[in-house]
């Protein structure tokens, strides 16, 4: 077991990715993910890896596409406006069944927005990371420890299902320092075989092709349907959530990532006041952990969704609750972090409302 070290979230993700066997990183500067790229630039040459500063986010994601097609574990990192530029490439990766890891250290939007922490890219990440029928797996860590854990796990998930995987962080998590135990480094020879990789056939197999173009509509439909069977397996097997004090909870908060830290404080404060509050914290945003919502439904009187946006995950919570309990929302946006007192006030108000 590694010893505990104090690290910034952004650096923990970078170090953890390298420990997962990532030896190729392609990036483009943007705040507030800078430390990921800076860490890679410093460390990759020491392990014989490649850090390359691309000419644009568009080029960077296409380098990820190429390195992945060539069989490598590869990552890029950006922040909200940069993720928009990467969306075309992510769609191509999904269409060519190429694994890869994309970090989004979110900032306020739309447009150039702000450089403060935000969660306003939830819809983009979970509903439409690019054009076409596809999903990507989205992990939303809430601590520096989880940033390390899921940056590592993301590569295994990506390779297992041949899908792009996103780590949804935010400027707060990326910049904060916390103690973290880093995962043990994976030996490169233990990484999964990729018989589909375009790495030169050596006259030993038919040529491999990485491609997302199908000119016959029925062929593409068949392929997309096959892909959706894989998505069903992901929905079945990969949902992750933390349930905190939910066993007897009347008021169940739902929150992910940085907002979940605030929500947890508010739940604790509510408990001190005698309000039975709890928290369901989705760790996978896609697949959305409907099972965890289902588990708290029998005793929950109402839900309070807390996000650093105008209410995006809110829609998935309502879909999971399916009208069986009221779902209210508290959010701050633009880069504003909610404070526990205002979330507590929302819990108190909701508790009074459902208690009547």
């Amino acid at each position, binding site marked *: 077991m590694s010893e505990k070290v104090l690290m910034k979230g952004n650096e923990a993700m970078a170090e953890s990715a390298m420990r997962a066997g990532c030896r190729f990183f392609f990036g483009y500067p943007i705040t507030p993910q800078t430390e990921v790229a800076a860490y890679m630039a410093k460390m990759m040459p020491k392990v014989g890896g490649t850090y390359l500063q691309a000419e644009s986010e568009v080029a960077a994601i*296409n*380098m990820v*596409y190429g390195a992945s097609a060539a069989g490598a574990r590869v990552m890029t990192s950006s922040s909200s406006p940069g993720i928009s530029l990467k969306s075309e490439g992510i769609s191509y990766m999904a269409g060519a069944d190429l694994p890869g890891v994309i970090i989004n250290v979110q900032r306020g939007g739309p447009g150039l927005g702000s450089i403060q922490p935000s969660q306003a890219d939830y819809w983009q990440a979970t509903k439409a990371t690019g054009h076409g029928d596809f999903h990507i797996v989205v992990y939303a860590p809430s601590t520096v420890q989880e940033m390390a854990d899921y940056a590592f796990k993301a590569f295994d998930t990506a390779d297992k299902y041949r899908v792009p995987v996103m780590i949804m962080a935010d400027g707060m998590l990326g910049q904060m320092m916390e103690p973290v135990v880093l995962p043990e480094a994976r030996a490169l020879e233990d990484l999964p075989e990729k018989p589909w990789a375009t790495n030169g*056939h050596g006259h030993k197999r038919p040529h491999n*092709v990485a491609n997302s173009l199908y000119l016959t509509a029925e062929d593409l439909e068949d392929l997309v349907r096959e892909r959706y069977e894989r998505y069903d397996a992901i929905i079945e097997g990969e949902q992750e959530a933390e349930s905190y004090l939910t066993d007897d909870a009347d008021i169940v908060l739902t929150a992910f990532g940085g907002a979940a830290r605030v929500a947890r404080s508010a739940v604790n404060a509510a408990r001190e006041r005698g309000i039975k509050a709890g928290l369901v914290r989705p760790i996978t945003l896609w697949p959305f952990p409907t099972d965890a919502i289902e588990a708290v439904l029998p005793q929950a009187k109402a839900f309070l969704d807390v996000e650093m946006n105008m209410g995006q995950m809110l829609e998935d919570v309502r879909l999971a609750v399916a009208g069986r309990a009221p779902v209210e929302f508290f959010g701050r946006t633009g880069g504003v972090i909610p404070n526990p007192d205002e979330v507590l006030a929302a819990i108190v108000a909701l508790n009074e409302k459902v208690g009547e």
Partner: protein
Amino acid sequence: MADNEKDLKVVFERPHALLPVVTNFCPGCPHGIVERLVAETMDELDIEGETIGVAPVGCSVISYDFFGCDMIEAAHGRAPAVATAVKRVHPDGVVFAYQGDGDLASIGMAETVHAATRGENITVIFINNAIYGMTGGQMAPTSLPNQVTQTSPYGRDVATAGNPIRVSELLNALDGPAYIERVCVDTPKNVRKAKKAIKKAFQNQLDGVGYSFIEVVSTCPTNWGMTPQDAFAWMRENMLPYYPLGVVRDVTADGFANAAEAAAARNAACPIAHPELKTEGGN
């Protein structure tokens, strides 16, 4: 009969690196000639097994079905970025991009320029036929002044649509490239010259000389609305004066071992680029 068969010799056949399939190219399209030259090169250098080709959006996008080596279809304009990464993952492999003018010089200009200036040790084959073929004949970045296309129906007005780009000359402003040559494939003689250039562009990669770029001035009989022969005549008359054939850069012919040596010589007067030089004011 039996004696005659014994005397038969194969003098011309499909290159191994070109799969036995029917291409989707229009009759008279020079793509077939150029792809054959690339395949012959792979055969002659015995590199099909370690070659990875990248074909982005355009008429050549389906090349993944034609070339026998491993192939990657890339997004529009992004082949140089994709090829860069493949070469970084497999530095001992052979990586080429095969791109048209809209792809390479319009939507993919940033990727083109930056792969070239990084001096990626890859081979780029650039088909310049002054038009977007696959989408039905729109104005391209290399369409000539006054050239009529679907989206320049009154002829390319340079006052509003701008001037064509001479890509080979533009890339020659950079330190990264090792070899840039412009060829065409309108006659057997020119096909042989083009073959020589393409082969050199791959040999350079094997020898670690650096980024090699072959511009093939080409035609599009279908979208130009001409017979293949008329198209070649129009190309010779109009395109070659604008895009002159020949070697634009060749660092080995200039006496350098590779592009990096040539670049170092060009910036010899810059102290930070040459830390071995003693300079004033620094340490």
